[in-house]
């Protein structure tokens, strides 16, 4: 506790100083090539048994839909080359170890939603070994957090290059009560307490700020069970996080929600302010939700903004 207080003191001072230093590039402002989110459908696979039988591995070899949200506002529709690998080591952020990686897909696309069908659970690496087994061998926790297979997407456009690592979770029922994760989906967004429809751009004018909120998600947040480090069942409840993005201006918070270690959950409320001096334009907004256990999806909204 005393160490915590000491460290906390320094952190407090550091945070106070950080507040005085404002980086120019804001996470919520999208202006170049980025991967804003990756989602797999299903978000996780769960075998019916923890015995490492061929049948169990077959269950985990199910085909999945891989979606990546690629944005490139300055690219003017330029081609984006992509490569998708699965590999064994989470610390290998670029899947550079060729012996431990399997190519899942590659090609060329443009900004937008990249959709691929993949079967990472069936991927094999050197010596025709199942990648799942290699992942388990690399895992210091011996699968107590699930078999977390890194899926690394490399996207290249012009001289910009992004590696985006997503963990695909393969489970088995280690403790009683474990069920497969359900993909988190935001029911809707509101601007200044007015519903924000998906199809038509919203008319916005003035300098703002505009208050953007997500419709209540508390009923959608699942309670779930994971195995504890001492093989006990640990009961958790999701606390969704939403990452906010726009092609103009910035959000007051780039991320909302989640829970701190005292269980205090954040509100999904942000304020959007257009850039000072900007001309009237159509602005794209994204809200990417994560459930904190691998599930993710996003909403895209548009607005016509006049100064």
């Amino acid at each position, binding site marked *: 506790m005393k160490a915590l207080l000491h460290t906390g003191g320094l952190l407090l001072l550091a945070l106070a100083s950080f507040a005085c230093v404002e980086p120019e590039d804001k996470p919520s402002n999208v202006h170049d090539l980025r991967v804003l989110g990756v989602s797999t459908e299903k978000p996780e696979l769960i075998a019916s048994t923890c015995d490492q039988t061929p049948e169990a591995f077959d269950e985990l070899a199910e085909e999945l839909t891989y979606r990546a949200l690629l944005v490139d506002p300055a690219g003017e529709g330029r081609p984006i080359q992509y490569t998708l690998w699965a590999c064994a080591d989470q610390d290998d952020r670029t899947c550079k170890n060729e012996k431990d990686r399997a190519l899942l897909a590659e090609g060329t696309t443009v900004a937008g939603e990249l959709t691929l069908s993949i079967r990472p659970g069936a991927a094999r690496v050197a010596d025709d070994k199942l990648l799942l087994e290699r992942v388990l061998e690399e895992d210091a926790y011996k699968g107590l*957090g699930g078999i977390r297979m890194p899926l690394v997407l490399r996207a290249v456009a012009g001289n910009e290059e992004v590696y985006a690592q997503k963990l695909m979770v393969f489970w088995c029922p280690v403790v009683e009560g474990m069920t497969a994760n359900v993909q988190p989906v935001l029911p809707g967004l509101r601007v200044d307490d007015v519903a924000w429809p998906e199809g038509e751009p919203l008319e916005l004018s003035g300098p703002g700020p505009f208050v953007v909120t997500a419709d209540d998600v508390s009923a959608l947040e699942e309670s779930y069970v994971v195995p504890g*480090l*001492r093989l006990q069942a640990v009961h958790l409840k999701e606390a969704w996080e939403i990452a906010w993005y726009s092609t103009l201006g910035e959000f007051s918070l780039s991320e909302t929600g*989640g829970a701190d270690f005292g269980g*205090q959950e954040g509100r999904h409320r942000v304020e959007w302010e257009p850039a000072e001096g900007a001309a009237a334009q159509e602005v794209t907004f994204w809200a990417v939700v994560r459930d904190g256990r691998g599930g993710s999806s996003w909403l895209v909204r548009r607005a016509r903004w006049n100064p």
Partner: protein
Amino acid sequence: MSPKSKARSALTAASLLLASPALAQAPQADAPTPEAAAQAQPVMTKPPALLQQVEATYPPEALAAGLTASVRLIITIAADGSVSDVLPTEPAGHGFDEAAIAAVRQFRFSPAEVDGVPAPVQVEYVYHFTLAAPPQEAPGPEQVQAAPKATLTGQLISRGSRSRVAGATVRCGDDPEAPEALSDADGRFTLEVPPGECAVRVVASGFQLYQTKEQLQANETTEVNFFLAPTAGALETVVRSERPKKEVVRRTITRQEAQKTPGTFGDPIRVIQTLPGVARAPFISGQLLVRGSNPGQTATMMDGVSIPLLFHLLGGPSVVNAEFIDQLDFFPGGYGSQYGRAVGGIVEVGTRKGAADTFHGSVKVDLLDAGFFLEAPVTDGISVAAAARRSYIDTLLPLVLPKDEGSTLSVVPRYWDYQVRVDFGAKRDARSEAEAQAGGARSTGYVMAFGSDDQLRLVSSGPETERDLSVDTHTLFHRIKGDWTYRKGALTSVFTPYVGYDGTSFKFGAAKQNGVGYTVGAREVLGLELSSELTVRTGLDLVYEHQSFDVEFPAPENFEYVAFPGAESVGELLVEKIGLGSFDGALFVEADLKVGKFTFTPGVRGNFQRAGDARNVALDPRLWVRFEATERTQLKGSLGLYSQPAETFRFITLPYGNPELAYQRAFQSSLGVEHRLTDVFNVDVTGFFNRRYNNIAAPGELRSLPKGGVIQVPYSNQGIGRALGLEVMVKKQRASASDRWSGWLSYTFSQSLDGRTGPAPEQNGSDFGGGFGGNGDETYGLSPFDQTHILTLVSNYVLGNGWELGGRFRYTTGRPTTPINHTFDLYQVDRNRFNGTYGPYASSRTSGFHQLDMRLDKSWQFQSWTLGVYLDVQNLYNAENVEFTFNDYRQRREYEVPGIPILPVVGVKGSF
């Protein structure tokens, strides 16, 4: 003018100098049990008295020229009462100095006593050379009997503080034949003179010449109080002498230095940061980073009892109230066997004994808090001193915090601390005097209590806030210690028992923790002077702690389960009651052995710890050597092993503690030389090499459980470190109360490495090592606190008329950083964070730190009290120093976090 000359002398204000606590500290190496005495904060129990005075020869040339002079001397009186050294403080010339010194060297004093034991002391002495008119024809005996007398009696009081002025001479006029009186310990005097007008002259060292006129009636007694004006600031004492050093490096900070060093806000612990071997802590933090060690590895003690929580409120002011301290001793390494439980340095805060003359006190108000200090004699032999302080930020903050409709923002930081000390046993009645003279036993002692209380409550709620937030912390501690010093002949025993209570409570949302700790400990130091060449000290240092915690918190990730990256789920509520006792005991023995010009001090400290199921043993052999090359030059060296137990709470059961932790260890060595350039200039150059191992690292390794499962041990003994360097200290002390300038230059050249053995931990949240970015593979390298060059200049000048100006300039090399080397984005989708790509580990540094702090003090002396105001300005020229660097969210660009800008602080202090 008559050709007849007269040399007169006056022993002035010996008590003033002797009252200086640093002067009356542990006796010389040849006095009994100096270490034991040092523990007891010894004080002057008997001033020296002049037994044999020798008249100086009036310098013939000066006599011929009709010159007069007053030669101010510093006399060192040995423990046997002989004069061992005489130095003029302000040369008078014309042969007066030589004549005075020659005479004074033949003086003989009764031995002064410190805590009842004869001890060497220094006094200031003024020798007056005056010329007198030829004597009138001596009156007959009848005339003498018939001459009427008047009596002038009274008390001499220091203006502005009401301290009694002892040892001052009171006389009427300049006539050297005129009778004079010497004031006693209470400042009282009685002078019998012929009636009529008396041109009173009071001469006292450290005070301005006092002159007034009194009309004295025949056969009547006139009672007066004279308020003497100190030559320097009120309440000021001059430290003329340091305790003899045996340790290779011991640096002492006086109360004056602790209170008035610029840029430290009068915080004694922060003053230590200006000494060699101590790296600069970030911002205005008071962390002690000693010779490459990490925060928490330097022990801070108050009169031998560990201070459990050194700083108020998240690194705020230290709990050590500068008003209550006598002096601080700082050992950066190579300390003796009686010290333990630290692998870095040691800070020993010596507290202040209550005044023996009368009631004194002070009240101080500054930006953060207000406090008072009181001291008074209770009865003969018993005195009390007390101090307390409380912050008032909690009352000011609501005035500046924003108030939004529908939202609540409340921040309540609050702290207070106190210290109380009652001394007894200094009574000097005839019987105890006789017993002491006969070599009988003598006991002195004191009881002291100190404690601190910190609260911080933060509530933020409302629909427009990011989340409803509630934080409530409360930490407190109380310590009561006794101190019994027993002396008989060559034997000294100092027994220090203590008890303590600690409380912590922490609430953060649904997470709650209430902790209670009880401490009981004792230290016994036994010293025996077997001969003038051999002194042996031995003792025990025992402490038992019991800590219990009631905790209630949502299942924490990575302790209870493997968290998914970026997960911020809400865990089920866990409720635990944890209790643990730990014992740490040490047996130590060491000896001072003089062989010619060498003094060897070998020692060993055996440590045993029992915490839960853990049993740890560590043996720490130590040796230091001093060689007196000349009277002014000493060579010194040390080497030894040091141990520090992990705190009790770290031994709680897995996965929240590690019951298998062992002692943290260190090897420390040093080699140096110290030279006294002049009486007031000292130079100390010391090189050091330290190696730390088995230090606590967090987190520890992953461990498979026998019944299945895997846990990450929160702490392990994998921490290692190494430091080498060179320290230089040049210190200028004030020669006398009229010497206006003091200060020091401190320089350290060092390289410190820190890290851990083995691979990087799985969940890297390490407190130590590699704390400045990088790819995370390296586990050993430059310490985040490494500073190659650390230069500090501190200076203080008494401008006069109550004004005092101080300055502190610091330069340190910038801290190590690992530069980013962005070539592509590395995005962790689940965590919604970017990883960086980096250049070589710790291959860069922030730019150097430089800062000037200034402090201006002004005091007004009134008849019985003094008002002081100070302005302490940090970073006077508003240097934009870099404290940290951080990268933007995409790890593409590095940003620098500046330190504090110019920061003026005003404080007011009234003392009486």
